[in-house]
C-alpha cells in the first residue's frame, strides 16, 4: 500500500471535515447577523415612530 498516497486521502478527509464544520458555522453566524441587523432596524424604526407620535400628541 502506498503510504504517501494514503496520506493524501487522510488530508482530504480532515480538510473536508473542517470545511463542512466551519462552512456550516459561518452560514449560521451570517444568518444570525443579518437577522439581528433587521430586528434592530425595525426596533429603531418603531421607537422613532413612537417618539414622533408622542411629540404630536404633546403638541
Amino acid at each position, binding site marked *: *500500500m502506498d503510504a504517501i498516497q494514503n496520506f493524501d486521502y487522510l488530508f482530504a*478527509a*480532515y480538510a473536508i*471535515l473542517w470545511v463542512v464544520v466551519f462552512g456550516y458555522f459561518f452560514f*449560521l453566524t451570517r444568518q444570525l447577523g443579518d437577522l439581528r441587523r433587521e*430586528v434592530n432596524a*425595525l426596533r429603531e424604526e418603531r421607537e422613532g415612530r413612537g417618539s414622533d407620535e408622542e411629540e404630536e400628541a404633546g403638541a
Partner: protein
Amino acid sequence: MLRSGNAEGGRGWLDDALGVAALIGMVVALWLIFIYTPVELVQGAVQKVFYIHLASIWNAYLGFFIVFVASILYLRRASARTDRIARAWAEIGVVFTTITLISGAIWAKPIWGTYWTWDPRLTSTLVLWLIYVVYLMLPGLIGDPERGRRYAAIVGIIGFIDVPIVHMSVRWWRTLHPDPIVATVEGPALPMSMWYTVLFCIAVFTVLAVFLVRQRLQIDEMRETLNALRSPAR
C-alpha cells in the same frame, strides 16, 4: 450580566464556553489522533479517518434520536419550541451524516479501491441522510405550515427506524464494511490509546454539536422576534 443566551440572538457565556471548549477540544483531538495514537499496521495513515468518521456518525445518531423524541412530543402537544429543537438537531444530524459519508468514501478509495459501493452499511447510511433531508424540506413543501410540521414529525419518528438498521447492517448482511470494534459485547477491540482517542473525539464532537444547535435555535428565535415586530397587530 451573565447570560446563557438570549432572545435578541446574542451569544451568552454558555455559547462562548461551548465554542471555546469545542475549539480547544478539536486541537487536542488532532494531537491525540496524529501524535498519540500509533499508525495502524495494515491500513496505514488513512486509518486515522476512523476517529472523525465514528464521532460524526455518533453525532448523527444523537441528533436523530433527539428528533425522534421531540417528534413524539410534538405530535402529543404541538409546541413551537419542540419543533424548533427537532429541526435544529435534524440539521446537525444531516451535517454530520454528510461528513460520515464523505470521510467513509475517502477512506474506502485506498482500502477498497472505490469511493462508493452499494454495500448495506453505505446504502442504509445514504438512505438515513435522504430521510432527514426530506424531513427538513417537508414543512416548506406543504402549503399549510402546521400540517407540514406534523408530517415532518411523523417522518422524524418513522425515519429513526433506519438508525438501528444502519448500526446493525454489518451484522445482519454480508458487507465490505469493517465489523464493529467499539460497540461490541466483548468490549472495544482496540489498543487503549486508540480507545481513549475515540472517546475523546466523541466527547468533543458532542460539545461541537450542542454549540451548533444553540446557534441554530437562536436563529429561529430571532426569526420569531422579527415576525412579531413585522406583525401589524403590534
